[in-house]
C-alpha cells in the first residue's frame, strides 16, 4: 500500500517539475508579448495640449519611407506641456515611451521616437518635426 502511494507521489512530483519547466510564451522587458509580426510603422499621430484638446492646426503628415512626422500646431501652443499620441502597427511599441506630458519645445532639435516591430527585430526611428 505504502509502495503504491510512493510511486503515485513520485509521478505527481515529476509532472509538476515538468510543467513548471515548460517554456512560456516569449515576452520582452516590458512584459509585452513578442510576436512574429514584422510590420513597423506609425499609422496616426495626435498632439494634445494640457487641456487634452488637440493643438494641431492640420492633420499630421506621416512619411513612412522618410520616417518623419510633420505637424503644424496652432499659434501660441505651449510645446513644453503637450501629450503626443502615436498609433502604431499591430504589436509594435515605442521607444522612448510616452508616459505623460512631454516637452517638445526645442524645435531646433526634433525629438526622435523609435518604433519597434512585434518580433522586436526591426527598429525604425521617426523624427517628429513640429512647426507653427
Amino acid at each position, binding site marked *: 500500500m505504502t509502495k503504491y502511494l510512493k510511486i503515485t507521489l513520485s509521478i505527481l512530483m515529476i509532472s509538476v517539475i515538468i510543467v513548471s519547466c515548460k517554456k512560456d510564451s516569449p515576452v520582452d522587458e516590458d512584459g509585452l508579448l513578442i510576436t512574429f509580426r514584422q510590420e513597423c510603422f506609425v499609422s496616426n499621430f495626435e498632439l494634445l*495640449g*494640457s*487641456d*487634452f*484638446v488637440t493643438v494641431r*492646426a492640420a492633420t499630421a503628415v506621416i512619411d513612412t519611407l522618410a520616417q518623419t512626422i510633420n505637424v503644424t500646431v*496652432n*499659434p*501660441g501652443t*505651449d510645446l*513644453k*506641456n503637450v501629450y503626443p499620441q502615436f498609433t502604431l502597427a499591430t504589436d509594435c511599441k515605442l521607444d522612448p515611451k510616452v508616459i505623460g506630458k512631454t*516637452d517638445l519645445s526645442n524645435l531646433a532639435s526634433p525629438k526622435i521616437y523609435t518604433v519597434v516591430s512585434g518580433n522586436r527585430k526591426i527598429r525604425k526611428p521617426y523624427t517628429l518635426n513640429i512647426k507653427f
Partner: protein
Amino acid sequence: MRNKNIKFPALILIMLTSLLACTKQEYTIPDPVSQLTNDCIKRTIGPSIVSLPLEFAYAMALPKINGKLVSAEVEASIAGASGTFLEHRSFYTNSSGVDVPVTIGTPSTTVDKLTKVTFNVDTNASTLRYNYVIPEEARGKSVSFTFTATSSDGKTATYKMGPYAISKMAIKKNLAVSNGVNAFISIEDMAVYNATAAATNAGKVDLVYLYRATPTTFTHALVSPGADAAYLPGVTLPSGVNRSTKLRKVFNLQDRNLSNLQYGIYVDDIDFTQLDMVDMPNYALGLRAEAGVWVETTDKKYRAYIFVNSINAAGTAVISIMRYTL
C-alpha cells in the same frame, strides 16, 4: 460498526442544522414611538465654502397623546453669517413631486450661534430646513451643529451633526470682462478692473483678458501681463502692471458652484494642493465657454481656478473664480 456509529449522529446533526437554517424569521412590528424623537440629514453635497449655505432637513415628532411641538432650535459651533435661518415652514412632497410648505410658526430668530423657531400651530410632527451660511471666521476650521426639539410635555430631543470641514477656498461668481475695458483681473482681490483701477492696483493685477478674432485660435484669452508681447497684441499695460502668472488650460471641468449649479463636478482644496504648475506658460489662448484655467500667482500666494461661464464674439465674457490661499 464504528463507521455506522459515526454516520448516524452526523446525519442527524446535518438534518437538525438544515431545519434550523430553514426556520422562518417572523417579522415583528417595531415598537411605536412613545416619546419625542428626531432625525436629521445634510442636504448639501460638495465642499463647504465660505459665503455658500449648508442645508439640513431636521425632522421631529411625538405621539399625539404626549402633546405637541413647541419649538425647534439649532446651535452652530460658529455663528452663521447673515442669511442663516431655520425654516418656519414644514415641507411635504405632493403627488406631483413638488415640495409644499405648511407654516408652523413665526420666522426664526438668530442670536449669536442659536437659531430658533417657535411653533404657533398644533402639530406633533414637522420637518424644518436649516440654512447655515458659512461665515468668514469658519474658513479652514470645522463646524458642527446641535439640533434640539422641545414638546409641550417638557421633553427635548437632540441630534448632533458634524463636524464639517470648511474649505479654505473663496468664490466669486459671474464677473464680466471685456476686451480693452474691464480687462484686468486680480486674483488677490477676486475682482476685474479697468485700466484706471488697474493702475491703482498695479501690484495685484495677475491677468489680462483680451479677444482677437485673428488668428482664429487666439479668440478669448487670459494672458499674464508679464507674458511675451506677442500674446498681448495691441495691449498697452497700465504703469506697474507686470506680474507673470502661470496658467494651465483645462476643459470639461465645470465646477457646480462656478457654473451656477449646472453640473455635478466639484473643485476642492485638494485639487489646488496637488496641482502641478511646474513649467506652465503665462498665457492661455483660445478659451471657450465652459473651459477653465488653473492659475498660480507670481508670489505663489494664491492658486485659483477660473471658469469661463460664457463668451461673446463681440469680445466679452463672464468668468467665475475659485481661489485657494497657499
